[in-house]
């Protein structure tokens, strides 16, 4: 046993070092900045100041929650029916799902700008019929659309994984015991797919709530999410202390949301991608 643990230590060492340098140390630095002022003295001022930003926090959480619900509603049926298709069809469609992810997030978001802009594709098209241009950039809808579009594959993937791993004889057993299609879903497929759903929610909600790029480009500068606010503090105002405080609170919020989520999954995360 002793020998094994030595090997374990050696094998785990690279990750431990990596985690220390790139996760723990930065976290400590964030905490340090969050609780100090520019001169380096300990203070709660940064945290107190955050009350000004409660609206931004609220909107960020709201938009990401909406985006997460929409991705879930799109992804769940898609993943379910996909898992029933022939293997070739499954491979092909999963390829199509993953394809946009091979392109950079920035490029994808720029493309959406081109589509939604005042002189964009949609408005040009509407113009052909003599319709007035519709303002889309800068609306909450555009931001949420951006989130849904960019993060949809992250919802599909874990749900599809649990669905495709589901043993078909279990479904037959449920049918055999008297379940019609809906009952089979409600009593068997849904509970078994919860771990995938929870992973998917985590993988969509977390990047959505902290995004700054999508809201910057598709929000047209009028919609400020928490990510934008942090970015501005860091990059424009050089107020690292406030930026750190914002980040810290965001992290705590995400942590709390995830803990609430995992309550729903009955602590049973097997099959999911995020523990």
């Amino acid at each position: 046993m002793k020998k094994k643990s030595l090997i374990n230590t050696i094998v785990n060492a690279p990750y431990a070092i990596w985690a220390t340098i790139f996760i723990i140390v930065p976290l400590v630095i964030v905490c340090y900045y969050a609780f100090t002022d520019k001169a380096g003295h300990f203070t709660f001022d940064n945290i107190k100041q955050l009350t000004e930003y409660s609206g931004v926090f609220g909107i960020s959480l709201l938009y990401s929650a909406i985006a997460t619900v929409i991705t879930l509603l799109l992804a769940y049926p898609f993943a379910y029916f996909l898992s029933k298709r022939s293997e070739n069809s499954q491979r092909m469609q999963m390829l199509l799902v993953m394809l946009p992810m091979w392109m950079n997030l920035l490029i994808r978001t720029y493309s959406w700008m081109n589509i939604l802009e005042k002189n964009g594709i949609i408005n040009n098209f509407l113009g052909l019929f003599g319709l007035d241009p519709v303002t889309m950039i800068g609306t909450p809808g555009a931001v949420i659309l951006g989130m849904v579009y960019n993060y949809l594959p992250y919802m599909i993937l874990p749900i599809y994984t649990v669905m495709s791993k589901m043993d078909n004889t279990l479904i037959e057993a449920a049918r055999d015991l008297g379940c019609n299609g809906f009952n089979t879903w409600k009593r068997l497929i849904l509970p078994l797919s919860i771990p995938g759903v929870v992973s998917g929610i985590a993988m969509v909600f977390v990047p959505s709530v902290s995004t700054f790029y999508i809201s910057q480009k598709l929000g047209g500068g009028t919609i400020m999410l928490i990510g934008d606010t942090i970015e501005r503090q860091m990059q424009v105002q050089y107020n690292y202390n406030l930026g750190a405080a914002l980040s810290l609170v965001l992290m705590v919020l995400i942590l709390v949301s995830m803990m609430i989520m995992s309550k729903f999954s009955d602590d049973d995360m097997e099959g999911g991608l995020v523990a």
Partner: protein
Amino acid sequence: MSNEANIAEKNIIQLKDITVKFDDDVILDNLSLSIKDREFVTLLGQSGCGKTTTLRIIAGFINPQSGDVYFESNRVNDLPPHKRPVNTIFQRYALFPNYNVYDNIAFGLRVDKVPEKEIKERVDEMLRLVNLQGFEKRDISRLSGGQQQRVAIARAAIKRPKVLLLDEPLAALDLKLRKDMQNELKAMQRKLGITFVYVTHDQEEALSMSDTVVVMHEGKIQQIGTPIDIYNEPENAFVADFIGESNILDGIMREDYRVCLDGVDFKCLDKGFGKNEPVDVVIRPEDVDIVPVEKGMLTGEVTQVTFRGVHYEIIIDVENFKWMVQTTDESKVGDVVGLFIEPDAIHIMKKSKYSGKFGDYSSYSDEMDDISNPDIELGEDEE
């Protein structure tokens, strides 16, 4: 041992002219089968013979390309699985991992919206039946194979189906437990007073449990009969070879009650064949007696002796046929002995497409050859 007294006269399930094809493979070829109420019927055959497909047709998971399925004289082809009065015990149990033992067993009743109080009573009754009291809260993943098996039985039986379908339910258990479970299942079938349709590839299981055995091969029924009939009066060379050990020889029916084997005429009890009609002859190894040469009907040399516990298995070369003889008396390799066969030990079968495929014991079985053949993929399952 048989519960013939309990079997009703009326048919509970009838399959008529069922044909199933997957792509171009014919899985079931114009199969017809009647199953009586409260009968223990076993579908017996090697993997790929269509036995599981037959079961799945009764359960409603497969729709045949042609043919009809009747349940108590109602045609049920278009009835989905959840509306059929049958329940299935699946090969690998298919217990729901998200529910504990109690909830697994209660599943079928909850779907039917039975009041919780009644569910509790019936689950308790089932737990008693399968001897699993005290396991209610146990997770499925923390059960042994034998325990999972019992939960699967309870889960299916709690719905009080008229027919219970069992798809190789004992295949995953080890030998001792399998024997015990055979007895338990048989007892359970009598206690529940319902029809069991049991699928297995294990002939011993089939013989010891069933009222009726249906021997299947290549999507066709080869023979339907009581275990004793199937063993003593096999319909063709395939059944004779598949059930138990047998010496299958080419013979010529000289006339009624006289058959010629290896140039020697034997008395037998069979009649109704044409004069000098070529036939297949099956003689069970335990029915052949080893006697001194002068008293024997055939003479041969002992080439192999294997001790099997209760008996010896002795291979004796007679001209060009290797006889297998099972006897409690030992012989030595190299002994020249006589073989004596009583008339009632000889069973005559009409020539069939299986004639000549199953000969003596000079070669390995097909399965043995298949194992060493990289071109053949051996799957556990039919599908």
